[in-house]
């Protein structure tokens, strides 16, 4: 893809997002630094995997981009338009059409009191995508697209009558109803049975190919991140520490945390003891964190500068950058 092609494809760009949650009473001014300086880009027809452990800030990033919460600072560009400037208080209906989301819990993300047909009708009606009889037909099309068959019989069922995998497919259908350009998927398969997961991931891949939808796939599972994502970004304690093309990043991780993560992923072909874990310790507290790189306390290759200054971006290959003092920062 040439540079000029990129300019024509609408994209979602988040720049330097920061989110601090105030905590404690007003007497002591503490804040949880959930996100610090996160930037990412998602293009149409591309899957970006956002990988991180719990507490890394990946879910918060999703909620910022879907505009369920307001960032403390930073910008979000959709199709080149700075949406936080043009619609500061509430996201416009147009934004909600273009950017959609799938949630983690298949049992909690569907309203228990309405049939799935009703829940799929609502977005169509609210966004005026169809009217009258068309609405029901469109809902049946959506059900067929995501593999809920036969649509005529499933359309009036309630969520409790469906299995976990089916509910998640309904959630995908709901996101699809408004014909979005970008879908954020927050751990969509982690609560599903193992043998069902691939089906849902393959569905997402199919939608990416057929409808040219961009996906931001958020997960803690590196293996599925590699499977689905064209590009992968690794987050730690509210920062993106490495980003690159998925296969390349998993083969050649540069950041010590990424290396640690990859070494810890279960590898059935090896014995447990062949690859020992390099660093102990756990994720640091996010309340009023000390300056410098958040991984410094656990890093085997830590230098003095790591504890003082957050490393800048070092672009090591055309599409592979890292934030680490082991590498020279870009100019």
């Amino acid at each position, binding site marked *: 893809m040439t540079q000029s092609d990129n300019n024509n494809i609408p994209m979602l760009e988040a720049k330097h997002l920061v989110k601090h949650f105030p905590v404690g009473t007003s007497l002591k001014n503490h804040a949880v630094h959930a996100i610090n300086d996160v930037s990412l880009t998602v293009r149409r027809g591309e899957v970006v995997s956002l990988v991180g452990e719990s507490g890394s800030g990946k879910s918060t990033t999703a909620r910022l981009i879907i505009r369920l919460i307001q960032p403390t600072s930073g910008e979000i560009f959709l199709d080149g338009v700075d949406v936080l400037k043009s619609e500061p208080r509430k996201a416009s209906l147009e934004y909600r059409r273009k950017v959609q989301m799938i949630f983690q819990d298949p049992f909690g993300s569907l309203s*228990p009191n309405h049939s799935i047909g009703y829940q799929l009708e609502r977005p169509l009606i609210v966004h005026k995508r169809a009217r009258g009889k068309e609405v029901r037909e469109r809902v049946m099309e959506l059900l067929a697209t995501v593999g809920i068959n036969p649509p005529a019989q499933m359309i009036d069922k309630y969520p409790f009558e469906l299995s976990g995998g089916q509910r998640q497919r309904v959630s995908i259908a709901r996101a699809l109803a408004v014909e979005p350009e970008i879908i954020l998927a927050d751990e969509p398969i982690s609560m599903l049975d193992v043998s069902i997961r691939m089906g849902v991931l393959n569905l997402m891949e199919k939608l990416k190919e057929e409808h040219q939808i961009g996906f931001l796939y958020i997960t803690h599972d590196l293996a599925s991140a590699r499977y689905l994502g064209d590009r992968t970004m690794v987050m730690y304690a509210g920062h993106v520490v490495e980003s690159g093309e998925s296969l390349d990043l998993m083969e050649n991780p540069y950041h010590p945390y990424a290396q640690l993560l990859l070494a810890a992923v279960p590898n059935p072909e090896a014995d447990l003891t062949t690859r020992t874990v390099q660093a102990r310790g756990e994720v640091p507290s996010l309340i009023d964190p000390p300056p410098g790189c958040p991984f410094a306390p656990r890093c085997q290759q830590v230098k003095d500068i790591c504890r003082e200054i957050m490393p800048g971006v070092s672009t090591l290959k055309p599409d592979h950058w890292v934030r680490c003092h082991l590498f020279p920062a870009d100019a």
Partner: protein
Amino acid sequence: MTTETVFTPAEAPAPKQKSLDFKKRFATLYVLLRHPSARLGFIIVGFLILISVFAPVIAKYKPTEFLDSGNLKPGSQYWLGTDPMGRDEFALTVWGGRVSLLVGFGMAAVAIVVATIVGMIAGYYRGWVDDILSLIINLFLVIPSMPLLILLSAYLQPSNSTVILTLAFTSWAFHARIIRAQTMSLREKDYVAAAVVAGENNMSIIFRQILPNLINIIVGGFIGLTIYGIAASTALAFLGLTAMDQISWGTNLFWAQNGNSLLMGAYWVFVPSGFLVALSALGLALINFGMDEITNPRLRAERQLRKILKGTKFQRVRITPVVRRTDPSSDNPS
């Protein structure tokens, strides 16, 4: 009831239903009627409503007629005797249900509607809206209701409507707080976030997503408030603070006290009305109890477990029972 349904490839076609919310709501009612406590409660309340509605038919005499001398013992002519003013006590008792039940249900309706609206808005919008509404709720909770009731009743023109309004005025805050808390917790659910992401506006979310999940609390609150309404209106009437030209269980008690029926031991004057007040409270409480058991999944599971284990010796065991069967059970094909 909670087992996962399997997606079997060939399913029997489901019957077409106009609106499934309709079917679902009646399903709950049907289940409720099968619950023994709730059924008894419905019977009691139904009985009371019926005798009140058909009072003119059941009672021989009109309750307003002064027929005979006061405090006459029950006999073949006057089934419950007469009150101190000489009116037929039976007629007074069955006619009394009309006003008492009307005021009770009416006040509950007004109070629960106000509580729901205030609670939902405070819980959903939070921020300064919540701060102000919470302040108001807390204010109403803190003010002692009985003295306020008495004060208001003494000031305003006494009539059924003013009684309903004053009772609702002093009792809505309790349930508003509960509804607010529940709304705040429902607001955090994923499907509410999904509705926001889908582009629904706030009003739509409040009425389509949050309100349906509050139905249990609202109905439970309505029933609880009715109990309170009947009891409190009876108390007010006993003190002479309602419209005294009405006939209600409370006014019957007032006239009983006024006419020295208690001193004279003329129990037939005050016992029937008092008994019916208590009976109404019992019936309503039983309905509430049944509803609790049905809607609370944990209580429901416990009830089911008790039913399943009835008759076996597994009620209290410390280790898993071993029951060796010689014949395989029906679902084991081998």
